């Protein structure tokens, strides 16, 4: 420890830089606009009650409300009743900055909807990827058929093509089919994972042939061998692939940005955050950072809980 002090010094310095934006994001999501502006309040802010101006403005009493409330304040003029009502509104609109920021994040934009979309899109992508890749990988690894080498060569060639790079022609094709601004547009380009096929094929090569022959003896069809024999053996590899796939598509911004325009109904979490940034003014830093925190959190928390699995999954592409 003592001997290595300079190593720890460098590593800690690096860690501080790595953590800084996370620290700021979380901290701003808890503070009031004033504290953010003046840079006060430490990490948590002072959490003094603050009045939400928008909420008060919304409850600005009109003539009818003033008249209706006159009974509650006997002997006051209309003007005084009005003032009393505003004071009431202010009292009810006061809240802690942290609560304010997170409430705003969920009410100013349909954040829950975005999160749900994120889940729908990432899960459908993964499920379809497995449905397509697993049988193909099994065939490439364990079946002998004319043309197999060609198919595998094609898989290796397709590994060269990053989907983001061909986003423009894909977008044109989807637009021609009238599919932009649909869930299909968000999912379709990712349904084929040549990497998944390659990975699973390499994994299936290690599964003993006897296992498959025994299943054939039992009269299982090839398709049921894929799902009832091969799938269970592949669970660890699939889990790693799931993490790889889900992380990539939850965080993806480029593709949704291209095919989803306008309709908030289809926004994925990063698109939602982007829109929030677009129409926010300076006083909205707090709620915006709250939104960012909510979006980043699920994966970070999952990562902290299952670090080994995550590192395995994300670095899968290094297993070639």
């Amino acid at each position, binding site marked *: 420890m003592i001997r290595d002090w300079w190593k*720890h010094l*460098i*590593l800690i310095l*690096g*860690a501080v*830089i790595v953590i*800084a*934006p*996370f620290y*700021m*994001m979380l901290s*701003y999501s808890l503070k009031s606009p004033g504290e953010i*502006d003046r*840079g006060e309040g430490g990490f948590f802010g002072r959490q003094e009650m603050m009045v939400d101006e928008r909420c008060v403005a919304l409850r600005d009493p009109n003539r009818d409300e003033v008249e209706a409330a006159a009974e509650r304040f006997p002997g006051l003029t209309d003007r005084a009743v009005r003032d009393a009502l505003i004071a009431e509104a202010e009292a009810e609109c006061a809240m802690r900055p942290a609560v304010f920021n997170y409430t705003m994040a969920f009410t100013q934009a349909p954040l829950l909807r975005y999160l749900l979309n994120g889940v729908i899109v990432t899960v459908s992508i993964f499920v379809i990827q497995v*449905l*397509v890749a697993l*049988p*193909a990988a*099994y*065939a490439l690894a364990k*079946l002998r*058929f004319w043309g197999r080498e060609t*198919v595998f060569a*094609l*898989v290796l060639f*397709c590994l*060269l*093509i990053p989907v983001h*790079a*061909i986003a*423009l*022609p*894909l977008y*044109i*094709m989807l637009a021609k089919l009238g599919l932009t601004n649909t869930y299909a547009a968000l999912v*379709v380009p990712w*349904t*084929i994972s040549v990497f998944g*096929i390659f990975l699973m094929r390499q994994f299936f*090569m290690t599964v003993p042939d006897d296992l498959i022959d025994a299943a054939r003896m039992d009269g299982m069809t*090839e*398709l049921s061998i*894929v799902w009832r024999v091969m799938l269970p053996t592949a669970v660890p590899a699939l889990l790693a692939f799931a993490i790889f796939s889900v*992380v990539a598509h939850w*965080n993806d911004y*480029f593709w949704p940005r291209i095919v989803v325009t306008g309709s908030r109904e289809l926004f994925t979490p*990063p698109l939602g*955050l*982007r829109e929030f*940034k677009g129409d926010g003014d300076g006083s909205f830093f707090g709620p915006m950072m709250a939104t*960012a925190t909510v979006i*980043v959190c699920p*994966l970070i928390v999952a*990562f*902290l809980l299952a*670090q080994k699995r995550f*590192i395995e999954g994300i*670095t899968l*592409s*290094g297993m070639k």
Partner: protein
Amino acid sequence: MAVTELSVAAPASRSVEASQRRTGWFLTAPALVLMGLILLGPVLVALVLSFTDYALGNPGFNWVGLENYEKLLTRSTYEKMFLATFTYVVTVVPISVGLGLGAALLITSVGRFRDLYKTIYFLPVMATLLAMAIAWEFMLHPTIGMVNRMLETGCGTILESIWPFMAKGCEGGFPLWLGDQRYAIWVVCFVGIWQGFGFNMVLYLAGLTSVHRELYHAAEMDGAKSAWERFRLVTWPALGPTTVFVVTISCIRAFQVFDTIEAFWPQGAGPNKSAYVMMFAIFEKGVQQNLIGIGSAITVVFLAFVMFLTLIQRWLVERKVHYG
């Protein structure tokens, strides 16, 4: 590969073979169709459209020959595009690979807190890049950002006299960072490095575990006394395959940079287009301005770069490893 049963040619094995052929094609068919439609088709579409003046909504198009490619080579906008892309790739790849290796070496050499450092350095890889880019934008805000506030606290201390940058900043204000053409692309590079080096570190950590202990002893016997000698003679050669892979994947990811730039500058990609990278150009020209021809030409050039890089990597790797 065993094809001996062909010669045996019992009727039973022939029918097994026929059924394997059928199921083989049946099981790979969905993947093949999707590969054709989603990966190979679009590459051809991009190639064809790059010779046209097509736009979405137009009934037809004209062949324009190499005009789109000519524009890429002559217009100053695209000169900026290539400059920004290469600046980014050439900066981010070596630094993030170097930092990844450095972090991996330091972490394996310290006794305590290994897992803690590893976890922290890997956090940016997991986080949504768009969100983190926005966080960095706040950090770099000229007046209320943490970075400039931190720098301001250094004013009036010794730093001011030994570091010209501080002296200048304290006198005339610290940089605008994202609003300043001189810094814009470097800030984007910084965020790219910040986000990517943890990934490289993890790959190097995996590579380091496979270096045999005995090799170090052998090197020591042969007179490699200093840590540097041991690194040069044992560690670095052993990490060769890892390095090839890490460099390639870093390159491909660096070429695809987009989120950071769109988050910082939704329009125009930086002051005076100083961060106008290729993915942003494809998005702006092809999708936003509906100039499909030129967008496709950029796509084709982009694909050429990426494929070229991957082929080099495969060539380097396949001299050692072979897919079984």
